[in-house]
């Protein structure tokens, strides 16, 4: 048969064509990863690119807000390259001065700020980093067209340099927190420092700033033109290595997007992913089964990070009837069975969220500063006096006050409150508005990846329905949701309004919150939940009182913590009485890491130097602490004793000179370096040892593949010759 013969030949040829080049490429041990040939796995730190595929991976212009550029966290730019003056240490709410030499000095009227930058820092192309760069950044943004640099335009009147390492910024309005716009509080700072020599004379609307000029410990080595990964190479002459003796261990850091959650799970099982932003619980289960080295917020399960920056829940549009009635909102709160919501978020390895009745992320610090002091008042406001044992036990185990859980599930109280404002239950068992129409609640929830608020919406809707209220949940694409959320065209939105993340400083509400509280920040074009414009009077204060407290908070420098905490407690009580939104807890984030190749990951409570925020700029400090475990072959990774503690500055009363930096415990050789008169820094000079042991794994795959192909070819040839005869 002619057809058969030619068919076989065709298939064989095709097979040969596909398999041969593959075999040729299979020899390298980790050739599957996009790393330079010959680089062993142990030299590379592989991190999740949470932005996915970049449409244009060469666009490093972050100035135009809201667009998809690579100068953010998904590519690794924020973590490894960007120029950032200050970072927030998420574990203790302290500010780390990085490119700035200590906290800034404010004038007594808080209208001028003197910022000093670190002496001896330079960009990775050798150009010194000076006050000029900061001044240039500010002025460049001041002159930029339209909406670019709007934060700077609102706050700054002018900036000028005093000397190479000092600059002065004159502010339009007094502001003791101006430096927060240079601080990575949540995710990234609003303003990163632009390298003057790269940006000068460039059009902010056209320039792509590629390749990026870095001042972090890495330089961009390669990127995927398809937009999935970015490979960063350690810069051996990094300024901080010279200044402080610190050097990151990984020779390369790869930020990569593996496609779907399934592929990410496989990658972590195969030890080809060291850090993941978060896994959905079902995928975490797969990872845990396949990889015993997985750690998270804690080294051992439960692993979830409970302090994601936003408390998730449901927000009322308080400018809309009937959600503008406090009794209605309070009644709806009492109709929620919190335990049900709480248990729905139990992870496969036992992770559970920390109940947060206040809009404050309940970190151990926040527990002391806000939760415990407000406990008595919260009980008066309806906090469950006898919370379920299962939650109490959990809180006790974590070292939290077990009596602060959530509001009491109390349908009778809800009924009383509703009837008080004229609502009534009809003969059909449903609830009616005072005007006689049926009460229908519409909850808007974001679709796609925002799974948690969506789940909360469905659980709560079910609970309200049980009480006889008609409830619809509308799930929309996140784009539609965001627009509706900002325009305030919803009744109840499932989202994460209002907190300030790991910060305790409530004067920072305008900087860190995504919902405004103070009426002077109300934007009628974007009313959102409407809390800033909502008028009320209550037992704990009225709208006017709240505004006064907030104004005072903003005027109080962040260093006067006692005053800030006491004022903030007043504001929080007013909030709790009004209950403009229902916050349950930050959803547990399975920000897991693989401890097979790298160790030194932060873990609670024993090695809690940072939260596992791999997609935030603060990841820099994790990268600096990692070191090889010895399980993976290394060549150029730095194997060092526990890496040095970063220079950390603790807040001190301003406008006094900048505070001293906390000295770090010395492990080996301690060298004290005075970087600047006012900023003595003790740093650890680490002994770097580069071992060049290239352990070669023998890979049998190519041999097997070759054998299979040869076998098939042989068979075919044999058949042909037999037939011909």
């Amino acid at each position, binding site marked *: 048969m002619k*057809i058969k013969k030619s068919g076989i030949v065709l298939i064989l040829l095709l097979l040969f064509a*596909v398999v041969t*080049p593959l075999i040729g490429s*299979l020899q390298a041990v980790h050739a*599957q*990863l996009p790393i330079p040939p010959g680089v062993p796995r142990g030299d590379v730190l592989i991190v999740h690119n949470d932005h996915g*595929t970049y*449409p*244009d991976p060469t666009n490093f*212009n972050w100035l*135009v*807000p*809201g*667009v*998809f550029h690579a100068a953010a966290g998904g590519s690794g730019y924020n973590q490894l390259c960007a120029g950032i003056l200050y970072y927030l240490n998420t574990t203790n709410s302290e500010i780390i001065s990085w490119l700035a030499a200590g906290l800034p000095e404010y004038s007594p009227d808080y209208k001028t700020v003197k910022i000093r930058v670190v002496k001896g820092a330079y960009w990775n192309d050798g150009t010194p980093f000076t006050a000029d760069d900061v001044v240039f950044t500010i002025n460049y943004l001041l002159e930029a*067209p*339209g*909406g670019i640099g*709007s*934060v700077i335009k*609102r706050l700054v009147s002018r900036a000028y340099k005093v000397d190479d390492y000092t600059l002065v910024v004159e502010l339009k309005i007094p502001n003791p927190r101006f430096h927060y*716009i240079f601080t990575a509080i*949540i*995710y990234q700072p*609003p303003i990163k420092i632009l390298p003057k020599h790269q940006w000068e004379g460039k059009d902010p609307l*056209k320039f792509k700033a590629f390749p990026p000029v870095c001042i972090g410990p890495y330089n961009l080595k*390669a990127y995927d*033109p*398809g*937009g999935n990964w970015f490979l960063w190479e350690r810069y051996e002459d990094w300024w901080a290595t010279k200044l402080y003796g610190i050097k990151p261990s990984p020779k390369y850091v790869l930020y990569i997007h*593996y*496609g*779907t959650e*399934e*592929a990410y799970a*496989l*990658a972590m*099982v*195969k030890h*080809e992913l060291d850090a993941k932003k978060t896994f959905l619980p079902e995928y975490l289960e797969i990872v845990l089964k396949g990889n015993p080295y997985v750690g998270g917020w804690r080294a051992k399960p439960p692993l979830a990070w409970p302090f994601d920056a*936003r408390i998730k829940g449901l927000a009322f549009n308080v400018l809309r009837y009937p959600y503008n009635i406090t009794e209605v909102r309070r009644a709806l709160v009492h109709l929620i069975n919190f335990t049900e919501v709480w248990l729905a978020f139990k992870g496969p390895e036992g992770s559970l969220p920390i109940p947060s009745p206040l809009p404050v992320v309940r970190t151990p610090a926040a527990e002391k500063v806000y939760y415990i002091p407000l406990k008595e008042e919260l009980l008066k406001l309806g906090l469950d006096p006898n919370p379920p044992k299962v939650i109490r036990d959990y809180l006790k185990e974590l070292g939290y006050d077990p009596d602060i859980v959530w509001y009491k599930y109390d349908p009778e109280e809800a009924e009383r409150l509703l009837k008080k404002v004229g609502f009534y239950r009809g003969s059909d068992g449903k609830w009616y508005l005072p005007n006689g129409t049926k009460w229908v609640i519409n909850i808007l929830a974001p679709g796609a990846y925002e799974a948690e608020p969506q789940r909360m919406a469905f659980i709560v809707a079910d609970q309200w329905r049980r009480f006889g209220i008609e409830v619809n949940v509308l799930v929309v*694409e996140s*784009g*539609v949701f*965001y*627009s509706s*959320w*900002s*325009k305030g065209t919803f009744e109840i939105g499932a989202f994460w309004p209002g907190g300030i993340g790991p910060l305790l400083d409530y004067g920072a509400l*305008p900087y*860190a*919150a*995504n*919902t405004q509280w103070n009426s002077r*920040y*109300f934007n009628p*074009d*974007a009313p*959102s939940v409407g809390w800033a414009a909502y008028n009320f009077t209550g037992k704990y204060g009225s709208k006017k009182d709240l505004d006064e407290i907030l104004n005072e908070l903003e005027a109080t420098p962040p260093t006067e913590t006692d005053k800030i905490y006491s004022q903030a407690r007043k504001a929080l009580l007013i909030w709790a009485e009004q209950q403009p939104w229902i916050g349950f807890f930050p959803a547990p984030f399975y920000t897991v890491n693989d401890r097979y190749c790298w160790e030194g990951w932060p873990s609670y409570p024993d090695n809690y130097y940072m939260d596992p925020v791999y997609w935030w700029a603060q990841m820099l400090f994790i990268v600096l602490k990692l070191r090889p475990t010895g399980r993976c072959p290394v060549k150029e990774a730095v194997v060092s004793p526990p890496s040095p503690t970063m220079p950390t500055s603790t807040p001190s009363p301003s406008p006094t000179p900048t505070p001293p930096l906390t000295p770090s415990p010395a492990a080996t050789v301690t060298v004290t370096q005075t970087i600047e008169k006012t900023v003595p820094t003790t740093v650890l000079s680490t002994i770097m040892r580069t071992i060049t042991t290239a352990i070669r794994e023998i890979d049998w795959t190519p041999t097997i*593949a070759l054998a299979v192909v040869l076998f098939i070819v042989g068979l075919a040839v044999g058949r042909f010759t037999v037939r011909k005869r």
Partner: protein
Amino acid sequence: MYWVKKLLRKILAHPVARYVVARAILMFATIFIAYSFTFLLLKFMPLDAVEFIISQYIAGSAATYQDPAVINELRQSLYELFGLKGTLLEQYITFLKRLFTFDFGPSILAFPTPVMELIKRALPWTIGLLSFTTLVSWIIGNLLGVITTYIEVERGSRVAKILQGIALTLRPTPYYIMALVLILLFVYFIPIFPLPGAGGMLTPEFSFENIISIIRRFTLPALSIIIITAFGWNYISSRTLALNIISEDYFIYAELRGLPDSVVLKRYVLRNILISQITFLALQLGTIFSGALLVETIFALPGLGTIIYRAINTGDINTALGVLSLSMIAVSLATFVIDLVYPIIDPRVRFR
């Protein structure tokens, strides 16, 4: 102008020319109408790119407070930057101009990168993958369908039955499942391919390493598409058509003439099937330009599918219209070409 008229009249006197001109006019009309509808649809989407950016900016997860005056300024300048200012009619005219100049302005989702640059980045991958898989699965599916049916009917073969069983199973298999099975098989159990997104660099340059990394990254996605489409629609439809032809009189006559198998297959079965199958192929090739979102997402590949998805999701009308008009033009062109090719394949059309 007289000679122009004369020339036109002369050309149109020829029936083939008349046919071509009529089809061309139809094609342009189709593109115009489709473009206008798409423009309107995108405009009336409940999502506006600028509002989306602003809402992200003031309410997103990493938001800071913004002054309302500044926000309004930002809004105005963004509308201007993105070329979205003016009334609906003015914008429509701007967008029409863009269609003719093939310059779709700046993209919004990756501002300031122009839309054409985004398309240029993604297009080679999309075309490469999808034209290859469409062609290969078309060829494999049709050949297999025809040959196995022929053998089955003529000789009664078990292979054909097995193939049919496979086809019937694969046809309703969700693509997602097939892709995951392949990933699990060839990335995890027999690790010869990299994880999606990993693998070497992807550059459009021609070099040995590049070809290797392209093969590494594209084999599994290509395989997943080919398996589903070759054994799915292509196989089933060609089999059904072949069965019809085999029962035709002219086929029986050919058999009775004692023509060899290969001639009967080639000239009587395959050629008759081609008429409808080429239409299908052409339309399939036309749809390539809208990308393959699912394939791109699962295998973390660059391509037009992801871009159009992102564009629609962020209200980026510039990019969305850019990609969609490409697709419109491609489908219209494909239809036009089929119309021109028909008379060559099918003699019956020539006489119409």
